[in-house]
């Protein structure tokens, strides 16, 4: 899965939880889930559970710890997908 494909999937996942439409439209790798998209912390749990479902991976508490930005999410997802192969 390419980085672009991961970002496209991530955008669909986070959309229901964002509270800043403009930041969502301008989403890049640098976008922060909390500071930019204003996702509330309880909904970050939903994002993590959705990422697990959509990418068919398991995120233990250690790997979700840094999951605060698009960039960090891509890195974790790529690592978990690679480990599956």
């Amino acid at each position, binding site marked *: 899965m390419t980085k672009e494909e991961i970002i496209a999937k991530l955008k669909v996942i986070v959309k229901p939880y964002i509270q800043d439409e403009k930041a969502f439209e301008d989403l890049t790798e640098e976008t922060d889930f909390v500071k930019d998209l204003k996702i509330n912390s309880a909904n970050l*749990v939903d994002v993590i559970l959705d990422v697990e479902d959509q990418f068919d991976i398991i995120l233990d508490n250690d790997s979700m710890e840094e999951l605060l930005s698009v960039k960090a999410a891509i890195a974790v997802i790529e690592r978990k997908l690679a480990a599956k192969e």
Partner: protein
Amino acid sequence: MIGNDVIDLQLAAIQSNWQRPGFREKVFTEGENILIDGSDDPFGTVWRLWSMKESGYKAYMRVNPKRFFDPKRMACSIAGNGSGHVQIGGYSFQTETTCDEERLYTTAVLGKEPELMGECFTIPVMEDASTYCHQRLRQHCAEHWSILKEQLRIEKTDKGVPRISCRSTDKSRAISISHHGRFGAYIIQG
């Protein structure tokens, strides 16, 4: 070291489904899950623990300002009434929670904080939540310090922790602000 967190319970019920499979395993420790299962009001207990974790996390960020997302790392214990403790990274924060049917509010401190000031309030419907909380906080400090509120500015330090400071004197205090739905709150370190 202070932190606070307010939860609009009506909004929480709409925004989050704590009964979603996997949610509790990601968020709560074994001990916390026992508290929830044994509670007469699992919904209230879930959000009480959540606000303890959140306020404890905010207080901890002042000791070690490296952000992370792992609610399980904040381990809560409830002492009775509104009191409790949150353990994070070797620190134990003391928490006080108040709640009614509409909202839950927790403050967390490390050790004895001199004269912690603050309040939890309803945000008028037409107001921007963040702006309104800042206004109330500046008003409070202005009265307390007997200065004009225009003299006060709220800003984050380079480590990302919020403070209120006076432009003309050296007065400066750590603060914590929280808002969710219809409710806002702030605390000011004494």
